[in-house]
Structure formats: structure tokens, C-alpha cells
């Protein structure tokens, strides 16, 4: 069985599994990282949105074999560590606006929001309604309006944040494949 290795939330992990298994299932079913949620498996609902090397992506649509050893995968569980705080400013904004209802989609919403704002800020742009309209994440509870408010506030707070440290500066520890089944 092929062996795969990458950096997950600042720590190197090794996984033995078939290369075509989508990363979402490697994270959830093998590594037990459950922040990224399944909502369709089709890169439509975006509930699994996480970051690869700082950019948003959907692990439901990436075979683990495409992940390179130095790729840095960040899930909601590792987001706060990217700013070296207990919570990322976007998570703080989510609390401030009490965005969540059931909460199922919110990890993906937050990861989308952070990447979106980073992308705009790198380009020197402010977030607009047109930018918010581009967000595809489904929220079946209908928290969309509060998401818009929180992203605007979170973006303002991210302006005043120092640049994110890379995971090479963060603590690294090797996590081995968790065996499951009976």
C-alpha cells in the first residue's frame, strides 16, 4: 500500500493508503481530523474547505496521491495557529456576530473567508459585495447575511494582524496513521 506524507496543521503526518482516496477521507476516516465536513463530495457545497499552502481548496476533490511531501494542509483545527493565537481574527468575528446556527458548514465558511480576504488583501483590495457574492459555500440554516457581516469585520481585523508564520516555524511532530476497523 502506498505511503503518503504531508504537513497537516503544522505537523508532519504519514499515511498508508491507496493514492486515489480523496484527501477528505484521509483526513476524516484515517487521521480523525473531523473539522472539514462532507456535504456533497462534489466540490459544490464547500463544507470541507481547507487550505493548501495558504490557498482554499476542497479536499473532497483531491486524491491524496496528488499531495506533495512539503504541501502544508491547514484545516479549521489548525487555523488559529497560523496567526499564533488562540483564535484567528476571522474566528473572532464569527463569534462576535454569532454567525453559526447548527455549525455544520461553518468550518468551511471560515476557511473560505480567510483565503478570500488574504487573496484580496495581497492584491491590495478591499472586500466588496461582489466578492462576497462569489462565495459558493452552502449554509442550509441560511446564515448568509451574518457571514457577510462577519467577513467584513474579520477582514478589517486581519489588516492589523502580522503576517502568518509558516508551519516550518511551527512545532512539528510526526503523527502516525491511526488504525481502525476490527
Amino acid at each position, binding site marked *: 500500500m502506498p505511503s503518503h506524507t504531508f504537513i497537516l496543521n503544522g505537523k508532519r503526518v504519514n499515511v498508508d493508503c491507496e493514492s486515489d482516496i480523496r484527501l477528505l477521507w484521509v483526513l476524516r476516516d484515517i487521521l480523525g481530523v473531523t473539522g472539514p465536513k462532507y456535504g456533497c463530495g462534489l466540490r459544490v457545497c464547500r463544507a470541507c474547505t481547507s487550505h493548501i499552502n495558504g490557498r482554499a481548496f476542497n479536499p473532497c*476533490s483531491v486524491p491524496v496521491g496528488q499531495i506533495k511531501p512539503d504541501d502544508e494542509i491547514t484545516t479549521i483545527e489548525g487555523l488559529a495557529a497560523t496567526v499564533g493565537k488562540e483564535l484567528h481574527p476571522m474566528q473572532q468575528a464569527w463569534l462576535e456576530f454569532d454567525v453559526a446556527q447548527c455549525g455544520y458548514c461553518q468550518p468551511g465558511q471560515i476557511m473560505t473567508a480567510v483565503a478570500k480576504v488574504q487573496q484580496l488583501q495581497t492584491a491590495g483590495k478591499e472586500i466588496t459585495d461582489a466578492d462576497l457574492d*462569489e462565495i459558493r459555500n452552502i449554509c442550509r440554516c441560511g446564515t448568509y447575511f451574518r457571514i457577510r457581516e462577519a467577513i467584513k469585520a474579520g477582514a478589517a481585523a486581519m489588516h492589523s494582524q502580522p503576517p502568518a508564520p509558516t508551519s516550518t516555524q511551527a512545532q512539528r511532530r510526526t503523527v502516525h496513521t491511526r488504525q481502525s476497523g476490527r
Partner: protein
Amino acid sequence: MAAGIQALSRSIREKQMSRVVGARSPAGGRQRSQEPVDGSESASRPPKPFLVSRRRFIGYLIAAPTLIAAAEIRTQPAAAAIATIQPVDEYDLSDLLTDAALPTSNLITVEVHPDGTVSFALPRAEVGQGITTAVAMTIADEMELPLDRVKVTLADARPELLFNQLTGGSNTMHAIYTPVRVAAALARSRLTNAAAQHLGGTASGYTIHEGVIRGPDGRSVSFGELTRRAAVKHTARMTVALKPAAQQKIVGTPQRRIDAHDIVTGRKSFAMDLSVPGALPTMVCRPPTINGSALAVRNLPAVKSMPGVTDVAIIHHDANVPGGVAVRARTFGQCIDAIRALEVTWSPGSVDGKSEASVLGDLKAAELPLTPALPLTKSLEEVLTFQFRPGDPLEPNCAVADVRPGSAEIWSSLKSPIWAKEQIATALGLPLDKVKVHVAQGGGSFGRHLFCDAAFEAATISKRMGKPVKLMWHRTDSFRQGRCHPMVTSRVRIQYVGQNVVAFDQRHTSVATDFTQGLGELITATLAKPPGQNLLQYSESIFNLTANVPYNFGAATQLLNEVYAYNTFNTSSVRNVYSPEVGTATELMVDQVAKAMGQDPYQFRRAFIRDDRMRAALDKVAQAANWGRPMAPGTAQGIAIHNEYKGRAACVVEIDCRPATVNRKVPDAYTGPRVTKATYVVDTGLPINPLGLQAQMMGGIMDGIAQVLSFSLHFQDGHFLEGSWDDAYYTRQWNTPFEVNVIVMPPTTGEPGGAGEFGVAASMAATACAYTRATGTMPTRFPINHDGPLGFTPMPTVPPIPQSPTDGLHHSD
């Protein structure tokens, strides 16, 4: 449901005794009462101020090493037979009725822990509606404790609670507010008494602040330090008074969700996230048409030998188990691979010969006749058609089950866990006490989790395979084989003379709504009918309790009829059940009549509205939304009201139907008209958490918008065409209003009404009215985009689910 569950059952009984069920007697059509369906105060009687008085309630202290205070879930004010001790915080156990043999299994309990926290296991399902937060607020307020020291969990299935563990009809806070307060008040009272005994003096000299009790001499002791001293050796029944409303500090104030931190950090654990040893990912290969059954697998050995696959088994379709071919594997990805590889022989489904047109024809044929037209009146009449629409939340239908030879354990988001436990135990052939049913946090519900098919199916598969399973439905299966809101038509006729409306008639005709689980459990008990049958009577009970005309329209009749058996299509009582369509049809026709009379929609409603609470909500929304402001051509405001859940709601939306907006391009999306602003006023009687209420209304608004403009299922050749969130157009960011303003009215009745479903009907109706005013044409088929060209390419039905893409890295952004 308009009424709380208790009121529901009472009302059903009354209706059974007092009147012939309407839809069974098409001749003539009965006259509906003009009283609000929930039986709250009428217009002639001004709303009472806070009802919370110094009435005393019965509670219990439970024998335990630490303090446990309890109450019956249907708490009644203390009867004369129970000793009443005054003042509130002074009593002696010797004065109390004590009985070690008191039946206490049916109680809800507040437990005080040595670390100073208080815990409560809520016998309801939290699915995002915020009841854990509202209950924690209620306990914290009654006990003078910081909110973050109250821990609310979800209780396992407790059959001894009988029909009191059902989460439905937006009933939770109405049903549980007083019992929770009684238990909390008793705990506070007992702790104060223990403090006085410990530090000296009388309890009346003691004050409580943030979980610390301070004596007259300034010495203090915390709840945590006191809990062992306050514990009782013998269970005791006693009375307690509740805190006067004027002294409440947390109830009625905006509070953030107690699980918000867990949510934003990814720690909140749903059923799919549970780590149960050996419970490997499991999915089911489902039939190509609705309710087909697997007959044979033609390539079983090949699929069993696929990577990661541990088990493959045929699971037969029955009343409770959708079934198909179950696959268990190391990862869900490998389940998907196996399902796509399976070659299965299927039996026909339950609707193979039907089409949208044939269903519509059947509805038309089943419509009950209108009452004879009154002489010398003008009338406006129209039939509105509402298509099937999806009923699932974002979290997939899922459950974990570990069925062993002599026992079983199940985890799932269940709104009727007692029913689930009893039926699953029966199906597994196990004694009730050998089946543990845990209620997991739910990732949304909207009525879906009244049905426990995921738990039932997981248990069946686990038993069959002899191994624990973590069952997940594929999203595509949820759209195609899951439960939906049924297709419905609604004929409305309004008769008027001059400026007066003299009669209103509505004939609602629906594909049968399945009430066999969840709400049906309650109705079954009330009507003493055998379970598992869905009589038209059930649906009529719900319809009669919810449908109402919130206007003085003279003689009003509203009748329901249904077509097909309850399990022909897979339906559920989707959020707000009948009311979104009943209300939208009504309000569209109200606008038509106002127009015919040359009246403004707001002023017309104001003139005919039935009670002061509704008029106050309407006036508030008109003022806050700046009703009547000049609007550009192609844009318009729409206004609507709704009366349910012991509350009143009013909504104004502004819609933009101009070509530049309608024809916006978003890839793989439906754009269409956009609601640009929504204003919503809600009076729930007693708002517990205004922030949570606002959230619920906002969510309801997003549903209302979607249901008018875009969200439906296309039915063809025995199956639904939609298979993904990009096919079924629920509201997305590009459909979201730029401005949403929800106003929570101050307390009016002193009793908390329903919230979770209360945002849908008025916002749907207001959106439909706004669209009609913006375009000058009233649509008669909803959602308005349903009859247009299909905006997506339907996925195949064999294999039943699509493969996940592999190009995700090329789409990172």
C-alpha cells in the same frame, strides 16, 4: 405547528369531539373559527403583561451525593395538597412531603457539581435552532449563575418521558421553559438554605451573585462548595416560587450560542464525527427510482475484493429502512468506489409510472369543492401550484450503530428518539433496555430528523454485517431518495362587496405528508390509532391546527385533501409544514383584492387584521422598512403577515427584477431576481434569546426567498432529477439580501412561543407579493424558475451516485 405539543394534543381532542373533520365533508365546508389557532388572547382582550407570578410550582429534590433538583416536564402550579412554605427561600425539609418511593423517572434534572458548574440533559434535539443556549440562559438566570457555567447536553432516548421527548412544531421552549425554571429555582432555593445552615442565620438574609451565596455578615460560599451539603438523602417533593420576571437578568437579553466556540474551532461533534471503535464508513447503493428494492447483486465477489471494502450486503426496502446494497469500507471514498462498481438488479419503485403532470392531475382531481358562491358579491379566485422541494439539511443523513447479539447502541440526530428506540428494539428483537439510543448534535434538520430512517438503516446493516457501522447517505441520494416537501396546490377564492371582504375559501390539496414518525407519534397517542398508518386525519389535524386566516374576512373555510398513501413519495413535515404555501397563496390573493379595491397592501391588511398583536407587528414592519417608499421600475416592496406558534410575524421585502440583476451570470448557478432587503418583525410572546430569534428569522427568510424564486425538485420517470446543491437552487450568497433587519418585539404574553420555523411563511409570502408587484404579473406556479429550461445536466441514476472530482488542486483559490 401553531400550538405547543400539549396544546396540540388537547386541541386535537377538542376538535375530534366538537366537529366533523373538514376534508371528509366536502359538502358545504365547515366554518372556521376566527379565533387564533393557538387559543391565545383575542383582540378584544388586551395582552396580559408578564404571566410569571408568585404562583408556586411542584419540584423535587433527588436523593444523591450532590444536589439534584428536578421537575416534571409538564409542570403544573402547586395544588392545595402540597404544602406551601413561605417565604421563598426558607423552608425546612420536615415541612415537606417526602417519599423515597416517589416516581421520579419521568423528571428532568438540574445537577449542581462540585466544580461549580450546573448540568442539564435536555430531552430534545439541538439542530441549530439554539435551544441549548436558551435553556442554559433560563437555568443561569433562575440560579444567578454565569451562563458559561451551565452545561447543556442532549439526553439519550428516555421512553419514560412518553411523548415529551419530541422535538417538533417549534415547541421546545414553550414546553420546557417552566419545568426548567422550577428545577433551577428549587436548586437555588436549596443551596441558599444550605448556605444559611452552614454559615448561620436565616436564608432570607442571603444574596446570590454569580454562583456565590453571601450571608448578612459578608461571608460567602460557592455553589460548588455547597452541593454536597445541599444534597438530600431522601427524595422529596416540594413547592417553589419562580423568580419574578422583573428580576430576570439573562432571559430576554441577546446571548451568543453556547456552542459557538466549539463550532468556529471545528470541535463541535456531529454524528459523523464520533469515534466509535470499529464503526467503519458505510454507505448504501440506492435504486434508480424512488423506493425500489435490491433483488440481487450480479458482481458481489468483485466488489467485495475492492480496496478497503470489508462487507457488502443487500438491505431490503421496508417501511422504516430505505435500503439497497450496503457497503462497509475503510473510508467513505472506498464506499463510493464500491457503490459505483455494483451491478444490482432492482425491483420497480413506488412512483415509476408517474410524472409531474400526472401528479398535478391527481391533485386537481382530489381538490375539495368550494362552498357555493354568495349572491351579489364579486370574487377573485386562483389556484397556486407549489412543486416538490428538498427537505434535507446540509449534514448528510447519518447514524452510527453497534448492534451485538444481546444489545445495541445507536447515535444519531433524532427528534423522536423514543419512537426510534422502541421501533428499532422491536425490529432487532431486543428488549428495550438493551438498546441505547444517543441523540447526537444535528447539523440542521428542518423537520428531517423527525424521521429516524438513518438510525434504523444503520442498525439493520450493523446487525446484518455483525459489525459496527458509521452510515452516511450520499448527497445525491438525499435529493433523490430522501424526504421532500410534497407537491401541493392551493385554490383561494375571496368574495367581496364594495370595500368589505365577506368570504374566504382555501382548498389545499397535497401529495400526502408522512407523519408516521415524529409528530405522528403524538397524534397516534392522542387519537388512539395504531402506529404505522398515516390517515388523512393526521394531516388534517396538523393542517387544522396551523392554517388560519389572520384577517376578518367573514365566513372563512380552509380545507385539506391529500393524494396517495403516505409512503408513495418520501416526504416529511418540512420546516413550517403547510404554512408557507397556505400563507403565500393567501397573501398573494389578499394583494389582488386590495388592488381591486384600490387600496394599499399595507393599509388593506391593517384594516382587516384580526388582533392587536398582529397589527402592532404589521405597523412596526411597515415603519421600519419604510413601506411605500418610491421604488424604481422593475423593483418593488412586498408585505405579508403570519400567525402561528403563539406568535405574530410580519415581513417586508424589496425585490429587484430588472434584467441587469435577473441575467447576472454566476457559473453553475441560478441568479434570477434578487431580494435586496428584508425586514422582519416577530412577536413570540416572550423572547428568551432575541439574538437567537433573529438568527432563526434570518434563516427562515433565506428559505422563504428560495421557495418562491428557485428551490425545487423536478420529478420525471419515477425519480427526481436534482442530485447536487448546484442543481437544487437553495439560496446562495449571490441570492442573499444586502440588508436584513429582524426586529424582536418586547414581551407580550409572558410565555415563549415557537421560533425555529417562524421565519418561513411570512418571508415567502412577502417575496411572492414583491415579485408580483415588481413584474405586474402574479405567478401561479412556484418556484418561478421551475418551468424554465433545466439549468443543469441531470446525473445518471445508474450508478446512483457520482464520483468525486480529482481536479480540486486546479480550483484552489
